[in-house]
């Protein structure tokens, strides 16, 4: 065993940079989290611990606006993530379990296209598209746009999972005269559940998270949480915004942790 001094893998200072990196990533979030419990009216001075801004979020003068925005966000994210997950499962079956075919590469490129086009360009293109076909902007336009750009995020964990599941199980089932549909429903789908859940959750977060595209394609008066928060922040950062942010932050962390745990769960053994 080589001592730490002579281990060629070690670089002095890399640990400090890593810790600095984590500090930079977490410091703003932690500080906003702390200040959301501030009793003071101003965001500058600290007046002791209080839950008043959380109460303000649910009962205050702006609570109605944020409540509607939160329901919109949730409703849109659930529909968009569900549709994106279904599309991603079907596409993954063709791309990963469909043998070699001419449009395979193109299909794969198409599925990941929304990741390559800058978000602002997608936003402009989608707005122009809805305008050109005379589709009036509202909830529906947001949902359609979200489905499209959530597909790659749902696809990644689902495809990775499908690659991890050997096809010998399905082959065995089909040798025993299961139809393709039965092989899918009884063998592949149950084995895919962890991948599907984490794909759905990632798509859900991406949809909840989106500001730019939503801001372009939403109709007048339709707000999601990010657009409502953005509108409020333009007037200045207020303590109730920090309380909302902290709650959303907690939600994101819970969902990502869930997705992480589910994806580690191995039911193929």
């Amino acid at each position: 065993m080589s001592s730490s001094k002579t281990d060629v893998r070690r670089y002095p200072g890399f640990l400090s940079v890593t810790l600095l990196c984590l500090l930079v990533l977490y410091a703003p979030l932690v500080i906003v989290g702390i200040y959301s419990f501030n009793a003071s009216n101003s965001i500058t001075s600290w007046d002791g611990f209080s839950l008043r801004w959380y109460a303000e979020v649910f009962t205050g003068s702006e609570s109605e606006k944020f409540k509607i925005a939160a329901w919109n966000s949730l409703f849109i994210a659930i529909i968009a993530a569900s549709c994106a997950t279904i599309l991603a499962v079907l596409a993954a079956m063709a791309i990963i379990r469909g043998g070699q075919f001419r449009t395979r590469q193109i299909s794969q490129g198409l599925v990941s296209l929304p990741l390559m086009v800058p978000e602002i360009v997608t936003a402009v293109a989608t707005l122009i598209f809805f305008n050109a076909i005379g589709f009036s902007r509202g909830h529906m336009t947001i949902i359609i746009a979200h489905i499209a750009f959530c597909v790659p995020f749902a696809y990644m964990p689902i495809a990775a999972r499908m690659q991890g599941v050997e096809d010998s199980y399905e082959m065995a089932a089909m040798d025993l005269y299961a139809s393709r549909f039965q092989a899918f429903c009884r063998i592949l789908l149950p084995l895919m559940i962890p991948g599907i859940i984490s794909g759905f959750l990632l798509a859900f977060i991406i949809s909840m998270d989106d500001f730019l595209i939503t801001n372009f394609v939403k109709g007048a008066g339709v707000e999601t949480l990010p657009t409502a928060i953005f509108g409020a922040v333009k007037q200045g950062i207020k303590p109730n915004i920090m309380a909302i942010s902290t709650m959303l932050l907690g939600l994101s962390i819970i969902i990502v942790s869930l997705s992480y745990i589910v994806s580690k769960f191995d039911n193929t053994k």
Partner: protein
Amino acid sequence: MAGGSTSGGSVKADTYAGVRHWLLAPSWLVLLTVVVGPLCIMLIYSFLTKEFRGGVVWEFNLAAYDKFFFDRGLFGDEAPRIEWTYISIYWRSILQAAIATLVSLLIGFPTAYFIATRPTTSRALWVFLITIPYWVNLLIRTVSMKFLLRDQGPLNAFLLSTGIIDQPLTIVNTDVAVQLGLFYSYLPFMVLPIYAAVEQYDHRLSEAAADLYASRWIALRRVILPAVKPGVIAGCILVFVPSLGSFLAPDLLGGARNFMIGSLIEDQFKGQAGDWPFGAAASMILLSMVLIVLIVAARRQARAKAAGGEV
């Protein structure tokens, strides 16, 4: 994170080969109508004439591109001069994105290397710690950054109380704030591909270098960096491309004086400017720049692969 991990798999499995076109049809339909189609329509719109309250008139011309590159005076009858306003916004955006990419690389590389050389059991946890902030709402992260960096914010309060500075630093509404915001938004994109590359790296090469009397830092520069270069390039692209067209960081942290491409385009559709063909043209120019970066990177990678380099 760009799905590269799924491209190298074998394609022996063909359970659903018979119905693959039906399986692909829904994704093709959605992505062609909602992504590819709109991009084509956007290209057409960039050649149309603007209508004053937003929207377009169906008359084809090059006015939008002309406005981008040339200044023909207030009434459009003077000899064309180069219009620097928009070119300089694009140039500044490239610069800002490049600086953010460089900072991400300087912080991200040691982090990725450090994580990849941890014992296998703790690696996943480190990666998880790095990725969590990415999944937190970008708007909230940017607002948090602004809150932290404010003139009367916690960072200045901390620095003042420790006596490092005696005047609050003005960071918000400067270029530095935008660079910090971009760096903060996309750092995980730098760490993950480099981490993946270092994980594949054979550390016996470093040992060989050490045996031949190379110092650690020479080994890093001459052995490790060339071997993990594809990961570094992927990381740089994944930070640079979204930074270039980002909207939230420049808008919230940069203020009105630090206009970037994203704000320029947004202004054409949601703001005061209301010039749709010009916004479409500006988007096309941004998209072309991004495509050039991606194509150059893909060709270099293909060439490296053909030359037998480790990819």
